[in-house]
């Protein structure tokens, strides 16, 4: 129990960041919630419409559901690349005796490059005319017949816009997981090896349970980041062709700033907030339950 004076000083130090959080995070969420009950174009008087925006969004808007489906696909691809890729690279890194720092830096590099530069880079990588890197490689290995306009095909575009986002942050999550793997006591692994455990058994029974708290945090980070993904799909395809790479975030942005339908866009933004909270809840539920089992 802290003495009275210390408690006061703790409170004094805690209040400014709390206030900042309230103004920067909670206030806009409340504002969005408030706006979502109105019809407003930004320049005309606001009209109260009750739950109409939510009813339209959930029952009558096909683009919204298409964007929601795309968002789930986008999150799945990003998670596989970011968490799967990060875990594999981090595990391999622990085996490396020399040059770890160089490899770490190289993997982390995409995370520090500006998003616009990444979007331009991938636009060239995917391009068919002029022929981009992927199509050049395909031609080089004799697969010229599968050359493709990756960003124009409705069946490949979602994966094509998800990959840069996944690639970009793999290095970052790899660092976090690598740090966690380093903390796994070597004697435990050695004991397991002596007992005849295979590499997979050692990983699954010793390493993974040990890094589970870090894994949960990383999964939450990666999922919420992917759910809020916006910039790369927006810059690469602007949601097209058609709505094939439209995400909830790009749809919300267009609804607000192109259609100037701020009320409806706010309803979508409230949905995005709820979606993130639900996703985090599910992750905790699944991974905690596994830990308890």
């Amino acid at each position, binding site marked *: 129990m802290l003495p009275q004076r210390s408690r006061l000083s703790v409170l004094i130090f805690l209040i400014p960041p709390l206030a900042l959080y309230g103004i920067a995070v909670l206030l806009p969420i*409340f504002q969005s919630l408030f706006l979502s009950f109105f019809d407003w174009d*930004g*320049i005309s008087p*606001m009209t109260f419409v009750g739950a109409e925006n939510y009813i339209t969004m959930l029952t009558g808007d096909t683009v919204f559901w298409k964007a929601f489906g795309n968002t789930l696909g986008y999150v799945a691809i990003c998670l596989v690349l970011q968490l799967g890729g990060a875990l594999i690279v981090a595990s391999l890194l622990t085996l490396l005796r020399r040059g770890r720092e160089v490899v770490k830096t190289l993997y982390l590099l995409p995370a520090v490059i500006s998003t616009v530069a990444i979007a331009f880079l991938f636009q060239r990588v*995917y391009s068919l005319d002029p022929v981009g890197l992927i199509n050049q490689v395909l031609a080089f290995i004799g697969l010229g017949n599968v050359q493709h*306009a990756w960003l124009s*095909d409705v069946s490949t575009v979602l994966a094509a816009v998800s990959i840069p986002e996944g690639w970009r942050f793999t290095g970052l999550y790899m660092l976090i997981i690598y740090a966690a793997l380093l903390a796994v006591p070597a004697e435990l692994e050695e004991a397991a090896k002596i007992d005849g455990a295979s590499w997979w058994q050692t990983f699954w029974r010793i390493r993974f349970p040990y890094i589970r708290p870090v894994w949960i945090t990383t999964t939450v980070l990666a999922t919420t980041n992917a759910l809020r993904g916006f910039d790369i799909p927006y810059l690469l395809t*602007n949601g097209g062709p*058609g709505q094939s790479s439209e995400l909830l975030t790009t749809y919300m942005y*267009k609804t607000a700033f192109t259609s100037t339908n701020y009320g409806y866009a706010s309803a979508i933004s409230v949905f995005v907030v709820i979606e993130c909270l639900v996703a985090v809840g599910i992750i905790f539920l699944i991974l905690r339950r596994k830990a308890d089992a």
Partner: protein
Amino acid sequence: MKHRKLFAAAATTAALALLLTGCGAGGSSGSADPTNIHPTGDIKPREISWLLSRPADGGVITAMKQIADEYAKDHPGFSLNLISTPDRPSYIQKYETLAAANQLPELFDTDATPFAQKLAKQGKMMDATALLKDLGVYDDYRPAALNYQRFDDGSLYMVPFEFQLEFFWYNKALFQQAGVQIPTSLDDIPAMCTKLRAAGITPIALDGQDQWPLERYMSYYPFRTAGPDYIQSLKKGDAKLSDSTGTAAVNWLSTLGTAGCFQDGFSSTGYSDAQASFTSGKAAVYNIGTWELGSLATDKLDPAIRDNIDYFTLPVTKGSVTDANEYVSPSGIGMAVNSKTYDPLVRDFLSFALKRYPAVYAATGALSPTTNVSTTIPANATPLYQRAVDQANTVGDKTAMPWDTQLDPTSNTRLQQELTLLLQGETKPDEFISTMDGVIGENGPKAFK
């Protein structure tokens, strides 16, 4: 007790949030009368800003910079701050957000969109007819240039700074190689594409990424078969794409897709890549305006294909209600004058600038929106340059309005998306029609009420 305090704090936060939101809502109308073009008071030089969407090194900005410098010499303390966002969607977002916050600068660019019309109705923009007439320059403008800027009711709130003609540029050598002629009817285009494809040539280079170039193709057929009024009715939901005019237009577009008229992967091709495809001799046709004369009709063009470049105007159709000399001739995004910040200085500067502008702008080799000056043909121009400039004097009265400036933004966004799918063969014409009629029916009447 503690809970009550917490509750009070939460309630205060919520009330503050509502209050702040309420403050941002609605916005106040312009303080000045939009027709009062003679504000009283002295001219007090200061910095004025123009929020615009034009290329930073383009003719308009170059000319206006020069004019602002000339004006500043006699009015120390004056400066013109040009804030340009050439990318149109980004610009529109910026301008609409500033309008919502009632923070628009003295001058700002806008097309004659429903949003701009709302601003005009709220008295936030100066009446351009009154302003131009008062400055004595109204009659200098090409009627087509002013008409392009008008709202549906004929009112004028934007001043044009350009005049452009949109042509189909083509490569004569590639046409010859494939054995095709210039299409005389829009219905000849699919056959032209098939022949060019068969000869291994990309028929038409299209910047699909920016979406407006493809939307032009949507407007062509109805402009020929039903005239410029069709889009006026369609956007309000009074006409439907399911009627004969709309169906014919959609079917024609669909045939452009099946004939492979545009390059593979056109939807992810950007502006410069599309142009490079034509200027490198890979694509046979490129539909673009006279703002590209500097790239297409000067010695900047690769000597190997320079002499093979020519252009034709929008082909007609059987029973066309518009003439061959009537096509897309836009006067570009217009400039609106903010009534809230309109004062003797803004008036005096505009008086100076709008009188001086045509001569300075025409000297850059561009077509002026007025008829009182002649365009200076650059020394490095090909004969095509002069021909294109002269063509401006033969343009007919009716203009094919780009649909992206006509439709409400929600319908426009959806149309752009659906057009790509139609041309890629992902949707059938009847699906396209039913989707678009539904979207326009839901959003159009609301936007133009």
